[in-house]
């Protein structure tokens, strides 16, 4: 097996045993980016010099056996919504072209303290708004399993990088499914922690009551390792939780024997592809054979989660994106007779179509006369969704369902129909609104395209989600399947 094909945990052992150096490992991944980067378009920026410098520092740390951490020397990709000091960070938007943040996100600081190696900034839908990566302000990402298909979104570049061997692991962000859905569509593991588990400081904001950063990895154990490194309270984010962070690896292999797992009947949505449904039902049966008791549960307000999300998220976005005015940073349009006109020209040229659509939708929902009917009603529906989860988790330890109702679809298939695009997130959105955590992991292939199983656990029970996911993974071989792009280079 080539180095770029391996997992964090494998590579950590090899680094500690001095079997390989971080520079060798980093060069292997950079070489793979050179081979397939033009095909996937996973990166907006490859930070080659920075990566090699960090790799040399990691090797020094490994050599002297000084503060060696699980991520020391491991090459990781960062979604472009994460600020890295002095490294161009654009959130996939032309309005932030050339922006170099004066500070780093807390998750970036934490990975740096671990001695991780930063490969670069991954492509994404502009301001993380999208489910296919086709809303990138620069260029779309191609799925490493089939280059004419989307990788999902909005963390599609991070997903494609991990699935093609262009990174060992990556960070993404998830507001309505943006880690889990691309993970499902590219055959990797994507974990959205509970809101508040990971600091959002330095994450370029989309919807501040929903956004959460999380790991995208080749397997569940790697997901636990990466989450461990980034989770925990941060005084710079007052919405980050002071709850203690458990040892996520310690309880990983306890199995599901005696656990109660619920299957929300509403999650087998209309329009779900038969192959996806079959895979999910097989996965549920397998967990039952592993000793879990399975019961059907109901989350009765699931059908109004999507409409509530498409009020709440755009409303918050319209407020968050007001800061892009071309004055303090980013793109500034020429012309305009006064400041207001310059704002309008800057934002007209700087934002892409989907971002404008959501700014207008959010502004409309918050505007005088419509606030009660849309925004307030959506916030009340959010309460109903939170209560649905609370009731379900009185009976079961975790919930099982598909991550996406379909496998990866062809590029261009849904770009003309915003509503069809929004429906991709129909079974990932409730976890964001309900403030619970959810992990997607590979559970099969349909005509060579990956299918994702979603495990949802109560708020701050990331340990439970990981335990169920790990039990499934160790009983199956699905996570060992590699995309043609990753395999072909072997």
């Amino acid at each position: 097996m080539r180095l770029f094909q391996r997992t964090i945990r494998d590579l950590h052992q090899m680094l500690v045993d001095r079997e390989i150096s971080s520079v060798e490992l980093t060069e292997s991944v950079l070489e793979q980016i050179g081979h397939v980067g033009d095909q996937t378009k996973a990166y907006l920026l490859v930070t080659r010099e920075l990566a090699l410098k960090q790799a040399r520092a990691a090797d020094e740390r490994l050599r002297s056996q000084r503060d060696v951490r699980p991520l020391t020397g491991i090459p990781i990709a960062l979604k472009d919504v994460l600020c890295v000091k002095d490294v161009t960070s654009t959130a996939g938007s032309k309005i932030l072209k050339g922006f170099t943040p004066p500070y780093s996100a807390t998750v970036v600081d934490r990975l740096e303290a671990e001695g991780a190696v930063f490969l670069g900034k991954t492509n994404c839908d502009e301001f993380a708004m999208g489910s296919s990566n086709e809303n990138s302000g620069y260029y779309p990402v191609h799925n490493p399993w089939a280059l004419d298909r989307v990788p999902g979104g909005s963390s599609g570049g991070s997903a494609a990088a991990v699935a093609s061997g262009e990174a060992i692991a990556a960070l993404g962000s998830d507001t309505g499914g943006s880690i889990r859905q691309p993970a499902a569509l590219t055959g990797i593991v994507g974990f959205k922690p509970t809101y508040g588990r990971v600091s959002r400081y330095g994450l370029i904001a989309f919807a501040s009551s929903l956004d959460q950063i999380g790991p995208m990895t080749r397997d569940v154990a790697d997901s636990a390792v990466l989450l461990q490194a980034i989770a925990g309270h941060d005084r710079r984010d007052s919405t980050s939780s002071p709850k203690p962070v458990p040892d996520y690896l310690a309880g990983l292999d306890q199995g599901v024997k005696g656990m109660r797992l619920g299957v929300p009947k509403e999650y087998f949505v209309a329009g779900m592809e038969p192959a996806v449904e079959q895979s999910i039902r097989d996965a549920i049966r397998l967990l039952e054979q592993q000793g879990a008791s399975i019961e059907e549960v109901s989350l009765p307000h699931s059908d109004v989660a999507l409409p509530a999300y498409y009020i709440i998220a755009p409303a918050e976005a319209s407020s968050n994106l007001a800061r892009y005015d071309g004055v303090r940073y980013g793109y500034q349009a020429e012309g305009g007779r006064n400041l207001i006109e310059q704002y309008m020209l800057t934002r007209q040229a700087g934002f892409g179509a989907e971002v404008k659509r959501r700014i207008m939708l959010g502004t409309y929902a918050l505007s005088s006369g419509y606030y009660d009917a849309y925004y307030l009603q959506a916030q009340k529906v959010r309460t109903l969704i939170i209560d649905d989860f609370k009731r379900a988790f009185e009976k079961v330890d975790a919930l099982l369902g598909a991550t996406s109702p379909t496998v990866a679809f062809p590029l261009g298939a849904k770009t003309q129909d915003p509503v069809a695009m929004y429906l991709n997130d129909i079974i990932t959105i409730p976890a964001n609104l309900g403030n619970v955590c959810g992990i997607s992991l590979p559970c099969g292939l349909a005509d060579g395209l990956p299918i994702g199983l979603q495990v949802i656990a109560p708020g701050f029970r990331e340990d439970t989600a990981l335990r169920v996911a790990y039990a499934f993974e160790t009983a199956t071989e699905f996570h060992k399947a590699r995309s043609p792009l990753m395999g072909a280079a072997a």
Partner: protein
Amino acid sequence: MSEPESELSSREVEHVARLARLGISPDEVLRYRDQLRNILHHIEALNRADTSKVPATAHPLDERNVMREDRRESCLEAEEALRNAPSREGSYFKVKAIQE
């Protein structure tokens, strides 16, 4: 609670764009009007849920009023804060006049 109007007009689209400080071309007005109408049509489903006795959730966490010690700390230097400015004068961001 008043029922939202079912059909969004071009004038409303222009008004919303103005509120959001978004320049918008005549073509875009029509395109966004039709797309937003369609999206709002799907969002009407929100009214299926009975929320007459349900409080709104504005924020998902239990923590309230997070305070830190009132202590002086260092912050971003002016030069650092200004270095991405498209247009500056001395240690200020430079903008156009608000009125012509």
